[in-house]
């Protein structure tokens, strides 16, 4: 058997079983066989993960700028195998199950109360929040760009975001984590220098505003990084 034939056989045998597996329609022995295969086959593991993501996407990633539906909802493709897959009974059954699952997820999401902030874990990226005072009061009117409202407690917000990053860090490779650590370290260095200058001139309004600027910069950087991790990096 050539490599290509082997690939064909694999694709014909295992992906449809993944659908059935998610359908819950297999016997325990079949499920065990499939789980053993998925454990050793990265392609099927990735495929299974993709299948699972489908329902999540439907529940969480609705278009932010929806446009009117086009009535003619026909998928066309210049690949006859694609059409063949679309009419496979197992695929249809899988789609129905996934659709129902997605509908259930949507229902659960709609019925859930507003989310609460996770407690800070203190784990993850090293920070130096203890040396930072609370953010100053609102800046002079007309002299500050409109920015996201500063948190009541900078250390608390840093700790909370640290927890978010730590929780999602496994999805980020070492290069990304190193970049993030280096950036936050650089911002912390700038913050320490700004605070040292403010200690020399504690009544200097510009320095007080600058300390708040650097704090906002750090929080915005962490929020952007966290948001990217939550998006499925």
């Amino acid at each position: 058997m050539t490599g290509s034939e082997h690939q064909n056989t694999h694709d014909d045998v295992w992906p449809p079983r993944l659908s059935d597996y998610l359908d819950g329609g297999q016997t325990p022995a079949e499920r065990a066989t499939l789980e053993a295969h998925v454990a050793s086959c990265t392609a099927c593991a990735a495929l299974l993960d993709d299948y699972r993501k489908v329902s999540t996407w439907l529940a969480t990633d609705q278009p932010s700028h929806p446009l009117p539906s086009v009535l003619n909802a026909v998928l066309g493709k210049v690949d006859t195998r694609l059409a063949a897959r679309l009419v496979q009974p197992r695929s249809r059954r899988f789609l129905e199950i996934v659709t129902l699952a997605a509908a259930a997820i949507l229902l659960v999401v709609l019925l859930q109360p507003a989310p609460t902030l996770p407690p800070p874990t203190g784990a993850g990226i090293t920070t130096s929040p203890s040396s930072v005072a609370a953010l100053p009061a609102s800046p002079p009117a007309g002299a500050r760009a409109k920015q996201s409202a500063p948190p009541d407690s900078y250390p608390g917000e840093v700790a909370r975001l640290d927890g978010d990053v730590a929780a999602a860090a496994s999805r980020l490779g070492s290069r990304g984590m190193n970049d993030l650590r280096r950036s936050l370290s650089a911002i912390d260095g700038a913050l320490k220098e700004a605070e040292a200058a403010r200690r020399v001139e504690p009544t200097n309004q510009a320095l007080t505003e600058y300390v708040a600027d650097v704090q906002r910069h750090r929080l915005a950087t962490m929020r952007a990084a966290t948001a990217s991790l939550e998006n499925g990096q």
Partner: protein
Amino acid sequence: MRATLAALGGFICVLLTQPASGQMATDTVIQTRGASVRIVMWDGSVRVRTGDAGQVRIRATRDSSVRIALTTAGDSISLASSSRRRNDNVVAYEIIVPPMSTIRVIANDTEVFVDGPIATIAMTAQHGRAALRGIRVRTMVMLFRGPITIRDAGGSVEATTLRGDIEIQNVRGNVSARNTDGHIHLRDVNADSLVANSVDGEVAYAGLLREGGVYRLTSHNQRVRLNYAPDAGASIYGTAVSGAFSRPEQWRWRAPSDSLSRQMTIGRGGATVRLMSFKGAVEVSVLRPLPMTR
């Protein structure tokens, strides 16, 4: 069941596969609806441009070992690539979407090029590059490493890269540009609010200043520059902690108790500009028009 399917907009999941491994394969999918395209990928590139209304065309060029799952839900299309070995998961997408569509890209190392008019783009990548033009409603880019270029945009722009330059030009809408290491250069932003903040890079703004707009440029270690249009009006507040002010004669002290800050007014003073550099210089000058050439 049929009613459920219809209510959810005809949910379709398709796998694009090629049998032979080690060869490049190209698929073209013509999707007759889809105003929102979401792409989850590892490495590669995404090129988006606009075409006919009500039609999405997707061309994916990849190694034949890479699988692409295409999912549709209502007006949304999702593309997710996977491969046996993660490093093989490289896809070059060319996508034509209806004007004012929404694009979302989640990737590891990917270059994204968009030529609008597109309504919204959200891009996240650990490494890569974003070159975006014609985003009309909202632009959100987060790169861990790589440059960002945004031109001719509207609505709001949020550009963050930990290590990389940011260049933003000709925007009508609020802008937030942040990096740690890299320059931030902005030009002609017609905004209520502009915030540009860098730790190790130069921050420079050139061009128009909107009356009533607030422009805030900050760099810790490098200079901050304002090159304003000749007809601009603004109250400019500058702070240089350990750096210097260029042309100090044009500034006056902001307050007797503040030895670090100075201010000046240009034109009718309609905009507010705050320039802050901790270790670099604060420079303000008039934007000179380019000389006419024959």
